[in-house]
Structures are given as C-alpha cells and as structure tokens.
C-alpha cells in the first residue's frame, strides 16, 4: 500500500522530469483539496505525488507591464484575495475562486487545481473562460500555451499531454469600461457544488457592449464557452431584448444531466436566469450609467 513517493521539487524541470518518469502513475499536488479526498476514497492510488508549491512560478502573482496578470497554478484562493490589485481588475474571477469551499479550503485550493480536476461544475473555470485566460503548460517537450476553454475534455479529464503540468493563467489587460462577474446557483448560501455557474466578462464603451465572453458551468460534460450568448450581447446596449437573446443562447447550449443537485429542465432554465443576473452585475461594475 505504501510504496508511494512524495517529491517537492524546486524547479519545473525537476517536476516535469519526475512526472514523466512515473509514466502515468504520478499525481500533481497543488492545494490537495481534491487529490487527498480522492486518495482517501480510493479513487486514485498514485505511485508518486509531485508537490508543486515549492516552485516559485507556481505560487506567484504577477501584474505585467501591460496591465495583465499571470497567476501561478497553485496560488490559493486566500492568497489571491489578499492581492491588492487582482480583485479590483478581475472581481468576477476572484469571486469564482473564493466561492470554492470553506475558509479552510480557501487556504489551499487553487484555480489550477480546479481546472485540472476536470469537474464540469468547477467554479473558477467559467469565470476564467469569460476572462479569456490563457494557460501555460510545461511538459517534456517544453512550454506551450492554450486558451483555458481548450483544457477540459470531459468529467475528470483534461487535454494536457502526458507529463504536462499546468503552470499559470495569463489574464489580458483590461480596456476602460471592462469588468466581470460570476454567479452560481446552489440551494444554500455556502459550501456546495454549483447546480449552474455563469461567468461573464464585458466591456462597455459609451453604454454599448463592445466585447463580451460568457462561460457556463455544470450544464454539460465540460464547462462551456457560449459564443452565441456573447454575440447577442456585443453591439447592444444590454437592453432587455439583447440580454433575453443571450439568456436563450445559454439555455440552448445546455446539455446537462439529471442528478441530485438539479434536473435537466431546471438547469436549462436557470442557465438563462443566471446569465441575465451575471450580465447585470458585470455591467454595473463596468460603470453602466
């Protein structure tokens, strides 16, 4: 049972090397709030655990010269919340991460872990998609970047190649009049998994929506980027007709399951409702008159 190894390398090259050498039996440990639960439940039995938190790039938050952000994959929700600028520029991304679990879980859980866990209901994923985040991954063949929406492959599965490790999220600079928001539907106020989650990022110029992106969680095998909803918003003044059309596009994009958290009918309806509310919050934050 205990022929299991633990490594906490200080460089990404070491981490990738060990991850590759373990040939599929290794698991990456960031905050561990999913991994330790899965290990305890016997869902995963890793031969090697690679703790990435001693790698500086994994736990750093950098505001770039152009006003964008690079957030290390293992940055915890609590640390991100204490950054003096991040939550002002990306309030929706921050609230999506901070909704995950309790205060205790926030001390450890990361957006990188949330994405790589592959849950269709991961809270930070729709907000990251709405934010147009790019992820940097490193593997045996070097580094590459991909849009965050290219990462999820299905429940519990992601499109990283063998021995690739998620390194960071890059969020673009924000034009004036931009903001974002994330809402999730749960039947209580805290400590639950999304029945539906909706992330919206938008830019307003003289009251007209000039850019928008919409991410939708827990309504399909993967978190969805709903381009049709964004299209309905762009060019409008976010009037009722435009927002109704975007809500309809969200409901049309849903391919949910029936489970104990919600039915297909309920999730499909709530997706549209949440879109409207989330657009309202993002627009107010963006300075809608």
């Amino acid at each position, binding site marked *: 049972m205990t022929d299991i190894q633990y490594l906490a390398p200080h460089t990404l090259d070491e981490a990738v090397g060990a991850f590759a050498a373990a040939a599929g039996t290794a698991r990456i440990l960031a905050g561990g709030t999913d991994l330790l639960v899965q290990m*305890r439940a016997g869902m995963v039995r890793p031969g090697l655990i690679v703790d990435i938190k001693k790698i500086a790039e994994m736990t750093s938050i950098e505001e770039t010269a152009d006003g964008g952000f690079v957030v290390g994959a293992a940055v915890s929700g609590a640390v991100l919340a204490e950054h003096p600028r991040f939550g002002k520029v990306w309030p929706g991304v921050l609230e999506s991460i901070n909704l995950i679990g309790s205060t205790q879980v926030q001390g450890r859980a990361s957006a990188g872990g949330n994405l790589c866990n592959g849950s269709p209901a991961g809270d930070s994923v729709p907000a990251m998609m709405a934010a147009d985040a790019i992820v940097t991954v490193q593997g045996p063949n070097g580094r590459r970047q991909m849009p965050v929406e290219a990462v999820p492959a299905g429940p519990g599965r992601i499109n990283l190649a063998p021995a690739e490790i998620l390194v960071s999220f890059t969020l673009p600079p924000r034009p004036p009049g931009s903001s974002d928001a994330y809402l999730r539907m749960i039947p209580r106020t805290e400590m639950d998994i999304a029945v539906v989650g909706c992330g919206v990022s938008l830019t307003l110029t003289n009251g007209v929506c000039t850019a928008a992106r919409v991410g939708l969680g827990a309504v399909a095998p993967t978190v969805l980027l709903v381009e049709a909803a964004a299209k309905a918003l762009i060019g409008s003044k976010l009037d009722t007709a435009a927002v109704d059309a975007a809500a309809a596009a969200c409901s049309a994009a849903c391919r949910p399951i029936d489970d104990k958290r919600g039915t297909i009918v309920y999730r499909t309806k709530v997706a549209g409702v949440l879109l409207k509310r989330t657009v309202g919050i993002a627009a107010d934050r963006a300075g809608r008159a």
Partner: protein
Amino acid sequence: MAKLHVSTTINGEPTEFLCEANDSMLDVLRGPLGLTGSKEGCGSGDCGACSIMLDDRLVCSCLMLAAEAEDSDITTIEGMAVGEKLHPLQQKFLELAALQCGICTPGVLVASKALLERNLNPTETEVRYWLAGNLCRCTGYDKIVRAVLDTAAEMREAAQ
C-alpha cells in the same frame, strides 16, 4: 519503502517525525505526535474539526500531507492556551456554553482565533461565513457565534 523524515515547528517547538508519503497531517498529529486535540470528523475537508494553522493560514489538516509540513510553522489547538491560562475564546466558550459534545470545538476555536487575528470587529454575518466550514451538530451555531462576537468585543475593549 523508507519513511519520510520531516522537520517542522509545531506550537513553537521544533519537531521531527517520520511519516508515509500518503499520511495526512492529521494522521501524524493524532498518531505519532499524540496531539489528539485536532479531531477527525469527515476526513474530506467538509467539517473543519481538524482545523490547524499552517504558516498563519487556516487549513484542514486532513487535506494536507504530513510531508508538506517540512520547514513550516504549524499551530494546533494545543498551542492556544498559554500554560494554564486559556485564550479569551476558550474562556468565553465555557462561560456561554458554546459547546456540548465538544468534537467540533477545537476546530471552531482555531478557526475563530484566525478570524479575530484578521478582524477584531467582525459582523455576525462575517463570523457565520468564516465558520461555514466548521460543522456542529449540537449547538445550532447560535451560541458559538455569540461567543465569538462577545470575545471580540472584550478583546477590543482590552486593547484600548
């Protein structure tokens, strides 16, 4: 497989222990280290009974590998009283009977102390959200929340 050797600091004391790679911090606290104040309720990060401070950050010790403790600074419920002198939160929980069976109490106290170190003037709502990850089946939470708010008020007064 040889066990891992870990050097860390627990409640201010330099501490060394041996562990398996998949032992949780809670396993080692309650087992070889004999610090049984931290409780195992769920083992999955839902109940908060195993709450500890890891480098000044509130975490569930059941969701942390013991191996991760290397070079870190850990405080458990055993580090809360100074000798025989209880922390004001501990004293207030006794006065207001903010516990019954006591299983959740160490975790609630560690989490509440972490809150008051950040915010000595929390609202009731802030207390309730901060403690949302600490489950209690006895008190209905009201006595806990009142004890935390009363302690905060007394500590503010004492600080003046």
